[in-house]
């Protein structure tokens, strides 16, 4: 039996990896498309159901399901972007509410197709590390995928292919006047972010049960991470996710499991009070 504290920290690391995985897509949407996407959790759920559907047909590993889930979610995301997100841009407040309605729609559709009952995929045995440390398979996968995803995002954004995205994030008018197809880039980015969420859902599906409303909690946490960390620094997003994961688990261990969520939320409130403009101080922006 391992001594508990390293186990708690390791589990916190993995939980943080989960949050980072979700936050990656959310940050892309919030930064480039400038929408608080409340349907992000629904795409996460979509990925999990795709993984379940494949597992039912004998394709056991969710790693194989992730690309398929990403493709399906990309298609849905592009459709949503073209039909709703782009046309409704004139009133920024309509966008989160519309994406929320889309999430509702998807949850109900999932309930009608797969039923409301929880479904489950086999998790596979964990690896046992030094001193009896239990290393969860899906935890490692979440952590590595989130690092890879965020690293890839950072690379794309700082390299040439990412220039249009950065310009659109900075100022859409200028980007448009330079001849960029702003509309297309917006909905393609939206689709890409949804694909990331679905891939996350597929990779994490064996860790628990798959239900239509499973995406709600990850959505909230990714929103928290992205707003507090800001969209400017990918490293800040990753570190904050890991930090919150470890903090939540440490609170559950040291204080009480019942109030770990409250502690996490209270920490977020304190962070916001201490740093009202987000934890990453950016250089002066144009108004």
């Amino acid at each position, binding site marked *: 039996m391992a001594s508990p504290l390293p186990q708690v920290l390791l589990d916190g690391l993995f939980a943080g990896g989960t949050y980072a995985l979700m936050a990656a897509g959310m940050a892309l949407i919030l930064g480039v498309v400038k929408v*608080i996407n409340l349907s992000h959790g629904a795409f996460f759920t979509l990925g999990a159901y795709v993984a379940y559907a494949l597992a039912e047909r004998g394709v056991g590993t969710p790693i194989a399901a992730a690309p398929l889930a990403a493709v399906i979610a990309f298609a849905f995301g592009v459709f949503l972007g073209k039909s709703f997100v782009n046309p409704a841009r004139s009133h920024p407040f309509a966008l989160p*509410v519309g994406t929320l*309605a889309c999430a*509702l729609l998807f949850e109900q559709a999932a309930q009608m197709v797969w039923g409301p009952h929880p479904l489950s995929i086999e998790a596979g045995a964990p690896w046992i590390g030094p001193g009896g440390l239990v290393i969860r398979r899906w935890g490692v996968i979440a952590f590595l995928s989130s690092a890879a995803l965020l690293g890839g995002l950072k690379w794309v954004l700082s390299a040439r292919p990412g220039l249009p995205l950065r310009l659109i994030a900075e100022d859409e008018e200028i980007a448009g006047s330079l001849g960029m197809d702003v509309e297309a880039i917006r909905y393609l980015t939206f689709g890409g972010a949804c694909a990331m969420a679905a891939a996350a859902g597929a990779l994490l599906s064996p860790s628990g049960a798959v239900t239509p409303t499973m995406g709600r909690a990850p959505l*909230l946490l990714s929103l928290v991470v992205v*707003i507090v960390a800001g969209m400017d620094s990918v490293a800040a997003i990753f570190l904050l996710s890991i930090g919150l994961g470890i903090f939540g688990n440490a609170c559950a261990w040291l204080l009480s499991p019942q109030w770990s969520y409250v502690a996490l*939320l209270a920490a*977020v*409130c304190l962070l*916001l009070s201490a740093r009202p403009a987000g934890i990453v101080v950016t250089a002066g922006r144009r108004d």
Partner: protein
Amino acid sequence: MRNAASFREGWLAAGIGLLLLFPLSSPDAFFLDVFTTGFLLAAFAASWDVVGGVSGQITLGHALPFGAAAYACALLTTFAGWPLPLAVAAGVLLAAAVGAGIGTLSAPLAGPFVALLTLALGEIAHEAAVGHTFFSGPGGYAWGGEGGIPVALPWRDASPFSSYYAALAFLCLASFGMLRFSRSGAGLILRAVAGSPITAQASGVPIARFKRLAFTVGSAFAGAAGAGFVLHVGRATATDLSLELSFQAATFAAVGGRGTIVGPVVAALVLHVLFQGLSLPPSARVLLYALTLLVTLRFFPGGVVGTARDLASRLGGKEAARPPRRRGRNNPGEGTP
């Protein structure tokens, strides 16, 4: 402008008249109940609009003052034996105080940070309500938690008609109050702050104080709606503090028209009565509701009443701005916008 104003007031009067006369067509108790809940939710949506629309502070935790008042009424009447009117007053005051607290905390923040802070505060309250159990309640068994706290009401079974009219009266009074506030001096300053905080600050407006005022007033009305709700239902549950309820207020405001006060009321009433009152099969109901939201927001992203107002003021404004003409003379520039 005078035309547009009396136009609006005419429609409002017609609407209220309709609602007053509706019970005379003898609908059954269920329909009256749906309307009663609808009136209370409409008042709640309007109170969101005071904070999120008029003052531009998008709050995703507006269920907090609503639920705080609900729980205050329930706890004070059941555990402390307070008379109902006193408990309701205490609930509304508590909601206002909670609002002041939220306003103080969110004053230095802007935009999505306010939304996040209010969301976090609302979720903390919800977790506390679900997680806290009173182990020695009256009767010797556990109270609270997800089961909620009952309210000790002086009446056994309220007549659906009296509930309906009481809720309607409350909605009219509350909306009137909120409309007056939004058109008052303070309201205009809040709109200015919402429009451009930097300009307002440069003009010497104490922004933090006004943000706090917006939250306090909006939360007070939300608390009143919460107290009314808990009197109608008879029980304060954790759902009264839930994120879903907070989102619902924001949704009604988006569909109705942010900043119009009347828009969220109309949207809340229409959506609630249609979707709860028509007794559709559950899956169809949720699908249709979500589709209605999407389609409405796609074609009226500024909200239904908001878009109607823009349209009316554009038409009315053109009318007022044009110099008077003699009848019958064709004017070539007439049809152009």
